[in-house]
C-alpha cells in the first residue's frame, strides 16, 4: 500500500462519489417503492420533491466522476515514480490485476451515467412523469457498477507495492507481448485505421437510414448504438497504435495516458473529451429508441436524438482533427511516416 497525497486525493473523490450515489439510490428506492402518480396526498408531493434531489446529486456525481477520471490519469503518472520500473500511468495500472479493470469500469460507468441523465432530462420535459419508475429502477441497477468500481479502486491502491518491479508501457504495448496490450499494438494500422473509418461511416449510414415499422427502427437504432461502442473501442486502439506515436514522435512510446500531461500541452483532454462526447451521444441516440413509450415521449425523444446526432457528428470530426493533426504535422515536416 502506498499512502500518498495523490492516492488520498483520489480516495476522497471516490468516496464522495460513492456516498453521493448511495444517497441517490436510497432516495431512488424510496421513490420507486412509493410512487403513485394519481395520488394527491402529502407523501406523493414529498416524493416529487425528492426527484429534484436525485437529479441534482446525479449531475454532480457525473461531473465529479469525469473530473476524477482525468485526475486519476494524471495522478498515476505521479505515482509511477514510486514504483521502480513503472515509467508512466500504464505501468502503475498494470502493477496489479485491479488497475485496468478499474479503468474499464470507470468508462462503462461514464456511459451508464450519461444514459441515465439523458433519460432524466427527457422525463423532466414531460408533464406527467412517464419514466419515473423506469429511471429509478435503472438507477438502482447502475448502483453496483459504482460499488464495484470503488471496491476495485481500493483493491488497486491498497495492493500497490512500491517495491515490486513493474513493466511500463514500452513493454506492455510491445508487439511481442501477449495479451490485450500486445494485441492492440500488433493490430497494424493498415487494418485498424480503415476499420475505424468503416465503422464511422457505417454508424453514420445507420443514423440516416430509417424504417417505417417501430420494431424495425428499434433494431436499427440498437445496431447504431452498438456501432458507436465499436467505434469507441477502435478509436482507443487507433489512439494507442497510431495517434500516440505521432504525438510523442517516437515509434516505441505508445502510452494512452502520457499525452494528458502538460508536456504535451494537454492534448489528451480534447482528444478523449471529444471521443467520449461522440461515443456517448451516439450510443444514447440509439438507446433512446427504446424509451419511446408514448407519442408525447416519442416527440421529445426524436428532438433529443436529432440533437445528439448533431453532437456526435461534430465531435467525431473534432476527434479526428485533434487526433490526426500531430500525424499531419509530422508528415509535412519530415515527409516520412513512423
Amino acid at each position, binding site marked *: 500500500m502506498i499512502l500518498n497525497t495523490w492516492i488520498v486525493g483520489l480516495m476522497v473523490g471516490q468516496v464522495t462519489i460513492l456516498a453521493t450515489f448511495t444517497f441517490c439510490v436510497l432516495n431512488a428506492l424510496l421513490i420507486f417503492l412509493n410512487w403513485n402518480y394519481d395520488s*394527491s*396526498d*402529502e407523501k406523493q*408531493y414529498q416524493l*416529487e*420533491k425528492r426527484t*429534484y434531489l436525485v437529479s441534482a446529486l446525479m449531475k454532480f456525481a457525473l461531473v465529479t466522476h469525469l473530473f476524477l477520471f482525468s485526475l486519476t490519469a494524471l495522478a498515476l503518472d505521479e505515482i509511477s515514480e514510486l514504483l521502480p520500473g513503472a515509467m508512466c500511468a500504464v505501468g502503475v495500472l498494470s502493477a496489479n490485476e485491479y488497475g485496468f479493470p478499474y479503468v474499464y469500469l470507470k468508462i462503462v460507468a461514464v456511459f451508464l451515467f450519461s444514459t441515465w441523465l439523458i433519460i432524466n432530462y427527457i422525463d*423532466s420535459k414531460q*408533464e*406527467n*412523469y412517464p419514466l419515473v419508475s423506469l429511471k429509478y429502477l435503472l438507477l438502482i441497477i447502475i448502483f453496483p457498477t459504482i460499488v464495484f468500481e470503488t471496491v476495485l479502486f481500493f483493491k488497486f491502491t491498497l495492493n500497490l507495492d512500491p517495491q515490486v518491479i513493474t513493466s511500463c508501457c514500452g513493454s506492455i504495448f510491445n508487439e511481442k507481448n501477449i495479451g490485450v496490450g500486445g494485441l492492440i499494438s500488433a493490430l497494424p494500422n493498415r487494418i485498424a485505421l480503415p476499420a475505424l473509418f468503416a465503422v464511422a461511416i457505417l454508424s453514420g449510414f445507420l443514423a440516416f437510414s430509417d424504417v417505417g415499422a417501430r420494431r424495425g427502427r428499434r433494431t436499427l437504432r440498437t445496431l447504431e448504438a452498438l456501432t458507436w461502442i465499436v467505434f469507441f473501442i477502435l478509436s482507443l486502439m487507433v489512439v494507442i497504435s497510431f495517434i500516440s506515436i505521432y504525438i510523442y514522435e517516437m515509434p516505441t512510446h505508445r502510452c494512452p495516458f502520457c499525452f494528458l500531461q502538460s508536456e504535451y500541452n494537454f492534448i489528451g483532454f480534447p482528444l478523449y473529451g471529444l471521443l467520449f462526447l461522440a461515443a456517448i451521444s451516439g450510443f444514447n441516440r440509439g438507446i433512446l429508441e427504446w424509451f419511446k413509450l408514448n407519442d408525447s415521449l416519442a416527440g421529445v425523444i426524436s428532438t433529443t436524438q436529432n440533437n445528439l446526432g448533431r453532437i456526435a457528428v461534430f465531435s467525431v470530426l473534432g476527434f479526428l482533427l485533434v487526433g490526426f493533426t500531430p500525424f499531419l504535422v509530422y508528415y509535412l515536416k519530415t515527409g516520412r511516416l513512423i
Partner: protein
Amino acid sequence: MIKTIKATKIYNQGRTNEVTALFEASVEVEKGCIAVLKGPSGSGKTTLLSLVGCQSKPNSGEIRIDGKRVSKLPDKFLNAFKRQYMGFVFQNYQLIPDLTVSDNIMLPLLPSGIVFKERIRRADELMDQFDLTKRKKFKVKNLSGGEQQRTAIARALINRGKILLADEPTAHLDSQLTDEFLKIVGRIKDMDYTILMSSHDAKVCENPLVDRVFEMKDGRIIQ
C-alpha cells in the same frame, strides 16, 4: 378565467394536527372581473388564494386557470405557468428587506431569462407608475408601509400576467391608504387583469369596483 371545482385542502394529512382548511370549494371568476373572498380569519380565504395562485396543490378537486388544469402539474411546469399568469401580493408583502426596491420588483423576471435591458425598462415603468422612482435605490426595509405595498404590487405586475391575487391587501393600511389602494386596483383592472382578493374590510367588499363577493366560513363557500 379562474375556476375551482370542489377543491379540498387538508394540511398535515394523516397526522394528529390534521386540519381541513378548505372543503369542496367551487368558485368561478370571469375574465376581467374583480372578486373578493370575504370572511373571518381562518375561514380558508388564504388557502383558496394559495390554491388558485398555484402555490400549493389541492388534495382533491380541480383548479383550472384559463382552461388549463393546473392542480396536477409537476412543479416545473406549474412554476412556468405561474410566472406566465400570476401576480401575487402577500399579506405582509413578503419583500426581501436587504434588496433595493428595483431589485425586489425584478425578482419574478429572473427565472424567465428576460433580457437585462427589458427587465430594467419594465421595472422603471412600474416604479414610475407607482411613484417609487425616487425610492429606486432604497433598501426595502427603509420604506414606509404604503411604499412597501406599492413595491409588492409592482413586483406582482412585472411579469405582465393575467391574474392578480392579493391576500388581505388592506389589513395594515389606514383608511386613506385603503382608498389609494382601491384606486390602484381600478388602474390594474384597466390593464386587463382578473383580480381576486381576500379581505374582511367592508370598505373593500362594498366598493363599486368589485364585481363578485364570495363569503367564506370554516373552509366552505357559503355564498
